[in-house]
C-alpha cells in the first residue's frame, strides 16, 4: 500500500514537472539565482518587487492574450487598444474628470474593440490575425486623431499615486494583479465554463459535440483581451505619468512571445495564465538582469529571441517524438499475435 502511494506521489510530481508552467518557473528562478550569484543585489527583495512591478503591464496583457490564444485565435490589436484607452482616460483625468469615469470609459473602449474583433472573426470569418491587424491600425489612428498627435501629459497626482501605493511594503497594484492572475487561473482550470476556452482550442469539433457555444466563447475571449488591454493602458498611464502617441507600439509581439515562453500554444488549447504571467516576468526581467550582469542592454532582444526559438523548438521536438511513439504502439497493437520486441 505504501508503495502504491509512493508511486502515486511520484507520478504527481512527474506530471507537475511535465507542465510547461513549471519549467518556465524553474527557468525564472534559475535566471534570478544565476544573476544573483554574479550580483547579489539582483535577488534583493527590493529588486524582485521592482521587477514584478515593471512587468505588471505585460502580465495583464499576457493574461488577456492567453484567453484568446486558448481558443486558437490571436489578438494583435492590444498595443493600440492600450494606447487609445490610456490616451482617452488620460485626457479625461487631465481635464479634471473623475478616476471612476476614466476607468469606466477605458474599459468600455477595450470591450467594444474586443467585441468588434470577436464578431469579425466569428461572424465574418475573417482570420483573427488579419482582423486584429486591421484593427491595430485603425485604433492607432483613432488615438492619433483623438490626441491630435500630441502627448497626453500633466496627469493628476492622485492618479499617478495609485501605481505607487504600498501595502505592507508591497505595491498594491502588484498584489491585486497577482491575486487576479491566481483567481483567473482557477477560473480557467477549474470552473465549468472557464475550461471551455481551452476546450475550444484543444478540439473544436469535440467542443461542439459536448454543446459548448464556440462562437460565443471566442467573442468573450476577444472582449476580455480588449478590456485587459485597456486596464493595462490605465496601469501604463499611472506608472509612467504621461502617454506618448507611440504608447504600446509593438508591445503585442513581446506579449505573444511572453505567452509562448510561458507555455501557451498558438494552436490553442494549451497554456495557463500563470505560465503566461511568468513568461511576461521573464521577458521584462531580462533587461534588468543584463544591467545587473553589467552586460550592455543591447543584448536584450537577441537573448529573448533565441530563448523563444530554442524553448519552442525543443518542446515541439519532444512532443513529436511522444506522438510518433503512441502512433506506433497503436498500429502494432492491431497486429495478430504481436509481441513487444524488447
Amino acid at each position: 500500500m505504501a508503495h502504491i502511494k509512493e508511486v502515486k506521489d511520484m507520478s504527481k510530481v512527474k506530471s507537475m514537472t511535465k507542465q510547461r508552467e513549471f519549467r518556465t518557473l524553474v527557468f525564472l528562478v534559475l535566471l534570478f539565482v544565476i544573476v544573483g550569484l554574479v550580483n547579489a543585489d539582483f535577488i534583493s527583495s527590493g529588486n524582485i518587487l521592482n521587477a514584478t512591478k515593471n512587468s505588471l503591464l505585460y502580465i495583464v496583457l499576457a493574461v488577456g492574450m492567453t484567453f484568446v490564444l486558448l481558443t486558437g485565435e490571436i489578438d494583435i490589436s492590444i498595443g493600440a487598444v492600450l494606447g487609445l484607452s490610456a490616451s482617452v482616460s488620460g485626457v479625461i483625468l487631465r481635464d479634471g474628470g473623475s478616476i471612476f469615469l476614466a476607468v469606466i470609459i477605458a474599459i468600455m473602449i477595450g470591450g467594444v474593440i474586443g467585441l468588434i474583433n470577436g464578431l469579425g472573426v466569428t461572424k465574418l470569418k475573417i482570420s483573427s490575425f488579419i482582423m486584429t491587424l486591421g484593427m491595430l491600425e485603425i485604433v492607432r489612428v483613432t488615438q492619433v486623431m483623438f490626441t491630435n498627435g500630441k502627448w497626453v501629459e500633466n496627469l493628476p497626482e492622485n492618479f499617478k499615486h495609485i501605481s505607487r501605493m504600498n501595502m505592507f511594503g508591497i505595491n498594491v497594484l502588484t498584489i491585486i494583479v497577482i491575486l487576479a492572475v491566481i483567481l483567473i487561473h482557477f477560473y480557467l482550470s477549474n470552473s465549468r465554463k472557464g475550461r471551455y476556452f481551452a476546450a475550444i482550442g484543444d478540439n473544436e469539433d469535440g467542443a461542439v459535440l459536448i454543446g459548448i457555444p464556440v462562437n460565443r466563447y471566442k467573442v468573450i475571449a476577444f472582449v476580455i483581451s480588449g478590456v485587459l488591454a485597456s486596464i493595462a493602458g490605465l496601469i501604463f498611464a499611472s506608472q509612467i505619468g504621461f502617454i506618448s502617441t507611440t504608447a504600446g507600439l509593438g508591445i503585442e509581439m513581446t506579449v505573444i512571445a511572453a505567452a509562448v515562453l510561458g507555455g501557451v500554444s498558438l494552436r490553442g488549447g494549451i497554456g495557463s495564465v500563470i505560465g503566461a504571467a511568468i513568461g511576461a516576468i521573464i521577458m521584462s526581467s531580462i533587461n534588468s538582469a543584463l544591467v545587473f550582469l553589467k552586460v550592455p542592454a543591447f543584448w536584450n532582444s537577441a537573448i529573448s529571441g533565441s530563448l523563444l526559438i530554442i524553448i519552442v523548438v525543443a518542446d515541439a521536438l519532444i512532443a513529436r517524438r511522444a506522438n510518433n511513439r503512441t502512433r506506433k504502439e497503436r498500429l502494432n497493437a492491431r497486429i495478430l499475435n504481436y509481441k513487444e520486441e524488447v
Partner: protein
Amino acid sequence: MEGLRLLVKFENIQKSFNQNKVLNGVSLEISESEVISIIGGNGAGKSTLMKILTGVYKADEGSIEINGEKVVHYNPSIAHSKGIYLVPQEPLLFPNMTIEKNLTIGFSKNKVKVREQARRLIKQLGWNLDLNRSAISLSIAEQQQVEIIKGLLRDAKVLILDEPTSSLTFAETESLFKLIEQLKASGVGIFYITHRLDEVFQISTHAVILRDGKVTLKGKINDFTKEMLIKGLLPLDSERSGNETFKKEFLDRSKEEPILKIQKLSGDGFKDISFDVYKGEVVGLAGLVGAGRTEIAEAIYGMNKVHSGKIYLKGKDITDLSANEKIESGLAYIPEDRFLNGIFSISSISSNVTAQVIKKHRFFIDKKFEKDITDEYVNKLSIKISNQDDEVKSLSGGNQQKVVIARILSTNPQIIIMDEPTRGIDAAARSDIYSIITQLKEQGYSILLISSDLEEIERISDRIYAIYRGTCQVCLGFDEINATNVMGAAFGTYKGSERHV
C-alpha cells in the same frame, strides 16, 4: 428475454446521403442486459445507425423509441440525458487536458462527486488509470477506457461500442470483455460493433447482421454458427446479376519475373508480408479497415518506415529509396483519402494533372505541354470537365479520382497501387473506374488494388491476398476467388489459412 425492460426500439429506419441509400428500413430493439453484436462489411450502415441513435444524424424515415417513448426532437445532448452513450472508435477526447478534466467537462454535476465516482468506477473495474495524466499520453485502449467511464458517469443505460478492440492488445481486450460482463449484469444494454467473429460468440447475447442498409440476419447468438454469419454477410446473387463481369484468365507466371516483389516486409501495423505482382495483372489486397493495408502500401511507396524485409521493382531493390526516387523508378500510388492526400482542391484541373509530370521539365513550365497532356488524359479517361482551368473541387468525386489517376499515369509507371479507388463516388463513376482498371491491365500495367469493398475486389482482381490484422496468410488464386472465400479471408476465418503459411 421476458421481464427485461425494453431500452431502445428502432422502427423501419431509413437514411440516405445524397442519392446513396445507406439505411433501408432497419428495425431493431435492445433490452436490459443484452449485448447485441452488429456485424457488417464496410459501408453496411452500422455507424450510420448508431449515429442516428446518438442524435448526430437524423433519420429520413422511421422512428426511435427510447424507454418506451417515441423521440421527436433529438440531438446528442438529449441522447446523453436519456442515457445513450457512444464510445467512438477514435475517441474524441481533449488531448491537452487531464483525464479528470476530460471526464468532468461539460458536466453540471458537482466536480468532487464526479471525481469520487470516477475513482470508484476505475477501482471497481480494476483498471490502472491515473486521473492526473493528460489525454495525449494515453494509449488508444486507455482513451477508450476514459470514454467508457465518461459514459458510465452519465449513468448510461445503452452503451455503444464501435469496434472497441480494433487497436487493443490481447490483455486489454480481455479486461474490456470482463467489463462488458459486469455491465451486462448491472442491466446495461450494449450495442457491440465489430468485424471479429470470434468476439461475437465470446461476449454477445444476440447478433445482428447488416448488409447494404438492411438487417439480413438477427437472433440469439446460440442459434448461429460462424458459417451462418458469413453467409449473412454475403451479397444476394440476384442483386449482382446486373453488373458486368470482367475478363480474367489464368496465366502461368512461374517462369516470369514479378514486377513488384514484396519479401517479408514488416513495419508499424503489419508483419512479415510477402506477395508478388506480375505484369498486366490486377492483384487485390483484401481486408477490413484497420487491417494494415494502407500502412503496407505507404511503406512500399516510401511514406512510412520499413523495419525489415525487401521491396523489389523489376528485380531492383527499392526498399530504401525515397518516395520521390520510387516514383522515378516506376511506382505509383493513389492514396486512400482523396481529399486529404490526393487532390489539390483549389488548383486547376490541368495543374492537378501535371503536378507530377512537370518534373521532367527543367525549370520553366510549358503551358502548351500542360494543355496537351491534360487534353490527352481528359479524353483517354473521359473526365467530364467544362474547362481545364476550373478548380478540381468543382468536379464530382468520380471525376476528381480520374484526375488523380491521370496525374499518376502521366509519369508512365510500371505498377500502380490504388488504395480504395472507388471510395465515396457514385455508381456510374465506379464502373468507369473499373473499366479504366481493366483497360490499364490490358495495356500491360500492373495494379495492386486495395479495397474494403469485398465485392469489388472479388470481381476485378486476378489474384487476391488477404490482410488480416497486419498479417498476410491467405492467397486466393484465380480459381479460388469467390465471395465466400474473400469474405472468410478478410474476417480471418478462411479454411485455407494454414496451408499458405
